[in-house]
């Protein structure tokens, strides 16, 4: 009888952790500008361009990418479990759309007199993630409500209302985009395509804090997540307070999505692809699947962003384009496979 034991937990997580560490080092060294590592490490002052590029430009960006890739994958895992739908992900449910709108409104409506006190960096780590969090939470609850009939969640309605909600939000964002000034609009577009760019270490640290907090909260619910995949009734009968679980998952994942979207816009498909691949490799037990997906998501986005930086160097692609290139075909393949399975071919 093969079940999840401590040995497997430790083995899988340490292998992935080692791969992640390797990826962070490798991706920091890779880039359009060739770096001399020994020279960079020899002199860490501002005067040394090699160390400046390595530690000021690349490393914070790589670290941010890891946090966001991991966070997206973890959110994908829990939303798929909670909604009983292996095709659920933050994009498909309209959640990241809601978060974007929240973040944009947060930016636009931010009272001007507060700017000198709480603008700039402080707004970036507190105000915008908070607004995006509220946007994510509201849209998640809205889409959920619209797919609930007589206490039953209809997966078909869920995906459909999520997709429609997302297109609606996209229209609202485009409208806002066309009424704000040209300079702001340009930045907004790049952000909407999903991109990572270099940020201050303080921002990176705050995003990590949001994401680690949310992740640990979700991980603590690992066992309940296993049970909720059996459906709400079965989970109730096995001892899960499903209402409380749902609320906590919604809040924790909205917090993470809000933080992620506030710095990187909508980086799609990570939350769909990584959980699927990891489920095939490590199994469906969420006590392992969740940390494994987090680590694998970090590794994946780390490399995807490196590709985005060097593919058209010196120009730079938004990383969302790279993930979509991988994720779009992957999603169609999944849909096809699910279809075959349900027809028992």
């Amino acid at each position, binding site marked *: 009888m093969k079940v999840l034991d401590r040995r497997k937990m430790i083995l899988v997580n340490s292998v992935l952790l080692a791969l992640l560490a390797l990826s962070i080092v490798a991706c920091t060294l890779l880039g359009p500008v060739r770096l001399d590592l020994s020279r960079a490490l020899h002199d860490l002052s501002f005067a040394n361009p090699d160390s400046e590029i390595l530690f000021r430009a690349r490393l914070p960006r790589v670290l941010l990418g890891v946090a966001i890739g991991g966070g997206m994958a973890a959110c994908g895992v829990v939303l798929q479990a909670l909604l009983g739908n292996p095709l659920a992900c933050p994009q498909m449910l309209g959640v990241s759309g809601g978060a974007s709108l929240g973040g944009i409104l947060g930016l636009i409506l931010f009272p001007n007199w507060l700017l000198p006190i709480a603008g700039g960096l402080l707004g970036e780590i507190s105000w915008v993630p908070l607004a995006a969090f509220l946007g994510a939470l509201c849209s998640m609850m809205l889409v959920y409500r619209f797919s609930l009939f007589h206490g039953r969640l209809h997966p078909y309605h869920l995906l459909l209302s999520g997709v429609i909600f997302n297109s609606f939000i996209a229209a609202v964002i485009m409208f806002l985009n066309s009424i704000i000034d040209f300079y702001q609009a340009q930045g907004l577009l790049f952000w909407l395509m999903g991109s990572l760019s270099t940020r201050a270490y303080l921002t990176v640290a705050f995003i990590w804090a949001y994401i680690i907090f949310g992740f640990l909260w979700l991980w603590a619910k690992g066992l309940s997540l*296993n049970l909720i995949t059996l459906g709400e009734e079965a989970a109730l009968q096995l001892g899960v307070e499903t209402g409380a679980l749902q609320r906590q998952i919604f809040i924790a994942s909205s917090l993470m999505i809000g933080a992620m979207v506030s710095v990187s816009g909508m980086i799609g498909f990570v939350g769909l692809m990584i959980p699927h691949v990891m489920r095939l490799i490590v199994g469906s037990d969420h006590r392992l699947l969740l940390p494994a997906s987090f680590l694998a998501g970090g590794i994946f986005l780390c490399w995807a962003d490196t590709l985005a930086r060097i593919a058209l160097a010196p120009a730079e692609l938004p990383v969302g384009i790279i993930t979509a290139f991988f994720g779009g075909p992957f999603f169609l393949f999944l849909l096809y496979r699910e279809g075959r399975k349900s027809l028992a071919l």
Partner: protein
Amino acid sequence: MNPAIETRNLSFAYKDREVLHDVSLSVEQGEMIGILGPNGSGKTTLLKIFSAVLNGQGEVRLNDRDIEAYSRRDLSKLFAVVAQESSMNFPYTVAEVVLMGRASYHSPFALEGKKDLEVARASMELTDCLSFANRYLHELSGGEKQRVIIARALAQEPEILLLDEPSAFLDLKHQVQVFELLCRLNRERGMTIVAALHDLNLAALFFPRLVMLREGKIYRDGSPSEVLTEKTIDEVYGIRVRVEQDCVAGKPQLFICSAL
């Protein structure tokens, strides 16, 4: 001894459609009861109220304590439920599914312990699914799947087992196997068993007490020969049958009289 389940004047309505009306029923500890009735007569609803998935109007007491006083975790140690069908969208192995029955017994932050593995193994042995413990649930046939779900219910080590048409998707052999297993659990472990049933003949063979529901009310309550008469079947199901005693088991069996 206190009754395992006791309801007084229990009613339940979905919006304005009343499903259960004034049901007062007492299930003694160690009893084995079959709930009968046509579709929509309230069988499933009654079971859902027993397992606290639905909230009815009126009183439900478990082991002489109000059902509201139990936490979900405590309820899941007292009750196990085998539903009509169980959906599975994610690839879990049989062993993983059975171990889910142990969730209330170990810390939510820990992996299953030795005791949990032993109980799960014993449950799988009892339901004859140890041989495919490492296969995925969605690869199994309907009969195998149902045995896994029963194994999970047994892994909960419940005092009371609730089953909603446990043999609905099974062939004759597996139906009989399931009912024989229920009889054994009832006799050897003193487990209280309440099952909603469709097949009246099998119900008569295996269940000493039957409760017949009609339009949300208890219509008859008693031994098979008291409940399954030509008159009650005509009144409850609206079909004509001939009832004869099976000469070996001494239980009533139904023969359908078709107009053709």
